[in-house]
């Protein structure tokens, strides 16, 4: 392309001038997303963080702008919040590990032992329940776990009973909800892994187990980590599954929710909300070098 000839239409001149100014084109393209996400979303996150240092007037319930670390002190000192934080992180780690252990063999079989055509169908089979509403799936487990529900009926003949509503039910439900988020990235990762590497490992005398731990697992790790970001983060922030099947046990999300609703204490809710954010940012920073973020 050369410069637009003299007398060309305005549109053509605009087009030509843009063509010669990649920086202008780039800034035009970036302006929309950056104003929306950079200004509005990051601004909102920053404001939330600032609010965490404010307080609430006990009598009027209004937010008082006075800087203090009181909220953070309460959070750190009160044994209740420590317990809830540990419980939440524990649940998130447990759900992530359970999902990784269940998802890996499934993804491996999908990627390596089935034909292209079957693979496409299997991807659809895994994705479909992902888009079946979150609430429907949590609800499904509520009716499965209920006193006269399917699980009770299935386990009664072997002399067992379902776990009922409680922390175990929360872990089961969350693992179920987030499983596709683990299967699909691992599948995508293993699908990219060339079969020839596995064959080479076998030709050099490694058995299946050795090949798995020395070749397959290291190469698939970024995909597992990519999946773990979602299972971990989604579990850290959840409060709805807890309300539906969790019985009386509380997670961080419930504390945040209750402080906004019933207690009307936005500053303290903001303080509690910084906990999962800090945990998540530390986790994201830790896994950045593995290349997992590029595959999201």
């Amino acid at each position, binding site marked *: 392309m050369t410069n637009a000839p003299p007398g060309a239409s305005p549109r053509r001149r605009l087009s030509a001038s843009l063509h010669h100014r990649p920086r202008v084109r780039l800034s035009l393209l970036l302006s929309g997303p950056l104003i929306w996400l950079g200004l509005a979303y990051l601004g909102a996150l920053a404001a939330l963080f600032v609010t965490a240092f404010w307080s609430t007037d006990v009598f009027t319930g209004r937010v008082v702008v006075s800087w203090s670390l009181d909220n953070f002190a309460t959070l750190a000192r009160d044994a209740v919040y420590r317990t809830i934080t540990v419980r939440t992180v524990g649940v998130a780690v447990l759900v992530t590990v359970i999902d990784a252990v269940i998802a890996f063999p499934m993804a491996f079989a999908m990627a390596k032992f089935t034909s292209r055509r079957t693979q496409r169908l299997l991807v659809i089979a895994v994705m479909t329940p992902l888009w079946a509403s979150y609430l429907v799936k949590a609800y499904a487990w509520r*009716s499965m776990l209920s006193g006269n529900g399917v699980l009770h009926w299935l386990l009664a003949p072997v002399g067992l009973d379902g776990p009922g509503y409680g922390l175990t039910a929360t872990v089961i439900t969350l693992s179920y909800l987030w499983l596709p988020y683990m299967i699909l990235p691992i599948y*995508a990762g293993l699908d990219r892994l060339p079969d020839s590497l596995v064959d080479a490992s076998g030709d050099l005398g490694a058995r299946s187990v050795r090949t798995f731990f020395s070749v397959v697992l290291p190469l698939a790790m970024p995909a597992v980590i990519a999946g773990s970001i979602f299972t971990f983060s989604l579990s850290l922030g959840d409060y709805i599954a807890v309300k539906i099947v969790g019985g009386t046990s509380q997670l961080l999300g419930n504390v945040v929710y209750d402080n906004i609703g019933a207690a009307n204490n936005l500053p303290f809710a903001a303080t509690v909300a910084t906990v999962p954010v800090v945990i998540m940012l530390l986790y994201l920073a830790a896994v950045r070098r593995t290349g997992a973020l590029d595959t999201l």
Partner: protein
Amino acid sequence: MTFSRTTRRVLLGALALGLAVVYFPLLVVLLNSFNADPTFGWPPAGFTLEWWSRAAGNDGALAALRTSVEAGVAATAIALVLGTMAAFALQRYKFIGRNPISLLIVLPIALPGIVTGIALNNAFRTILGINLGLFTAIVAHATFCIVVVFNNVVARLRRMGNNLEEASMDLGADGISTFRLVTFPMLRSALLAGGLLAFALSFDEIIVTTFTLGAGMETVPIWIYDNLFRPNQAPIVNVVAAVLILASTVPVYLAQRLSGDSASGGRL
């Protein structure tokens, strides 16, 4: 491949069992929608269509459906524009700050929903002084839908390269014509797939919606949640759940047909 026959069998068995477990609870919901026992005791007490006919006439559920569709369509439209712009910028240009920006696009879904929810709630109410309504929910939904469109468009741009666009320019088309006649047609199915998935994500979202939708309004997930703990509503909730299970297969199927790229969900 060097894996023994036993390994193959075990892993394929695990895959089949895993999928069976994934679908089993959904199947139970479907079966329960015809269960004559209103508390859904198992095994079913008998077959009935009563819950389906009662749900069809439920005004609350229908109003919630309308709100969900309005929010989803508007959020998807915004996400399509912004996600495509971001995809072009990050896929076609090398510049400083590229990595932080790609992290920023993922952030709204990488952070727990409750954080995004109260951050936006606080920004709307305390800082900007806007009352919560449908508009605020749309803004919130668009924020986390951008990444879905972005992912789909980036995948397509990466695959199609820019040979055809360069050819078009060499043959004398200006940038705008090239976009209209060459680039856009090649992107169209990726945009449609991204849009469908963004809509599905918006339709399903509950945590962020709880904090950004105005009082007195309900989306379908919020309606389900509100009615979940009312024993006399259980059969209707169950029918709505059954409908959503069946309806959710449509966008996934279409998106998969259209995109041709493997897995292409928002959080994937």
